[in-house]
């Protein structure tokens, strides 16, 4: 199990166990993390699972692919560390990942 921490817009932090091979979005939904809507269910088609990746983790996660960048155009308040959590695969190397959820999802 890989630990992932979600910090909501009010600053409250929640750490969950995520299954390797799933996505950060799925881990959020499974644990009822507020602030992740995932309207499209992980098809990279809605930009409502938008998160800000903690600066320490931006490089380790790698760059968003073209499809994800295109979808990020539709996200609310996009920043350089913006990612769609449905496109971040959970794996041992990202144990301890911290992401923040935006004030709202679109």
């Amino acid at each position, binding site marked *: 199990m890989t630990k992932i921490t979600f910090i909501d817009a009010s600053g409250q932090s929640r750490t969950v166990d995520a299954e390797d091979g799933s996505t950060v979005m799925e881990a959020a939904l499974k644990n009822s993390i507020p602030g992740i809507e995932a*309207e*499209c269910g992980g*098809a990279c*088609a*809605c*930009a*409502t699972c938008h998160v800000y990746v903690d600066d320490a983790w931006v490089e380790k996660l790698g760059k968003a692919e073209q499809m994800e*960048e*295109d*979808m990020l*155009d*539709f996200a*609310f*308040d*996009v920043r350089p560390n913006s990612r769609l959590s449905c496109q971040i695969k959970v794996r041992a190397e990202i144990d301890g990942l911290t992401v923040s959820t935006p*004030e709202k999802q*679109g």
Partner: protein
Amino acid sequence: MLNYEGGGSLLLRLQGGKFAEDGSRAARPCCAMERDIMSEIIKTDVVIVGAGPTGLFAVFELGLLDIKAHLIDILPKPGGQCAELYPEKPIYDIPGFPMVTGQGLVDNLLQQIEPFAPTFHYNEMVEGLDVLGTPEAPAFRVRTDGGKVFEAKVVIVAAGGGSFQPKRPPVATIEAYEHKSVFYAVRKMEDFRDRTVLIVGGGDSALDWTLNLHPIAKRVILMHRRDDFRAAPHSVNAMRELVASKQMDLLIGQIAGLKGEDGQLSAVSVKTADGVSDIACDRLLPFFGLTMKLGPIADWGLNLHEQLVPVDTEKFETNAPGIFAIGDINTYPGKLKLILSGFHEAALAAQKAHRYIYPEKKLHFQYTTSSTNLQKKLGVA
């Protein structure tokens, strides 16, 4: 990539597989004329709100019972989320289809309901609902934002996740400017004549309107968060040529704030690599795609539970007799948001709808495999 140019929208392109373009549903040059013609009341048995898979299949189940339906949808095409969010994605849990794409399912449903000749009203959002009848003999008047008025004995809400509406940019004060100097679609091009127009976005709507408003606007400025555009390459090239010949401006940045008075914009603060600065303009057109909101259904007096409409599991009727809710928009103990659940709900709702529409007739349950009567209706006997 699926190009959609129909439905009276000249400038609408939807990208396959994407939560696509940019609130263009209101790009209806003919809308004022339509409104005048459509002020007469459309009378029908059932109004179905939402033309997604569940709404489409409801047409079939109603049709077998000789019930006529009109469908209203905010999108410019049928299929709801299947067509808008994941037209090319495979679906694996439709009974009898080991695999079918979102658009494939919609196409099959349209073929299946063709014998019942439903009437579709696209680009319309149902706004108001008035109760005309009684609980025993319900009747409703339904009004759309496009000015259409319907009278029906039964209303079936098959609105899925709600209506697709344009996303707002992250600026707190934007509502004060909306419909005055900030627009999410171009309804009348004349509103932009001799104006300085800031268009924000990188998709087809942003690029198409940049190119189309450029000849009539005083100046067009296009802004996008990155120097990479999703829009069709030929539009991007045309835009770059206009920029190169200094006929318009391109900015790489994001909206930071709005300046103006009484809803009239005078400048937009933009954040670029060089910092925050003000861009003088008097029109703003943000194209950030669509989101789903429950919308005006929330004001119909229906019981709601977490943005969903509670129904019984015998008839899928709401607390208001004659108003049914089927598919993703309803809730009941054990509800699963599956397309197949919506199909089942449509069939049961149709049975009760029959009692409201033909109170004097007794309904005999029949199978399409054996009933000549049903086969005649389907045009196969």
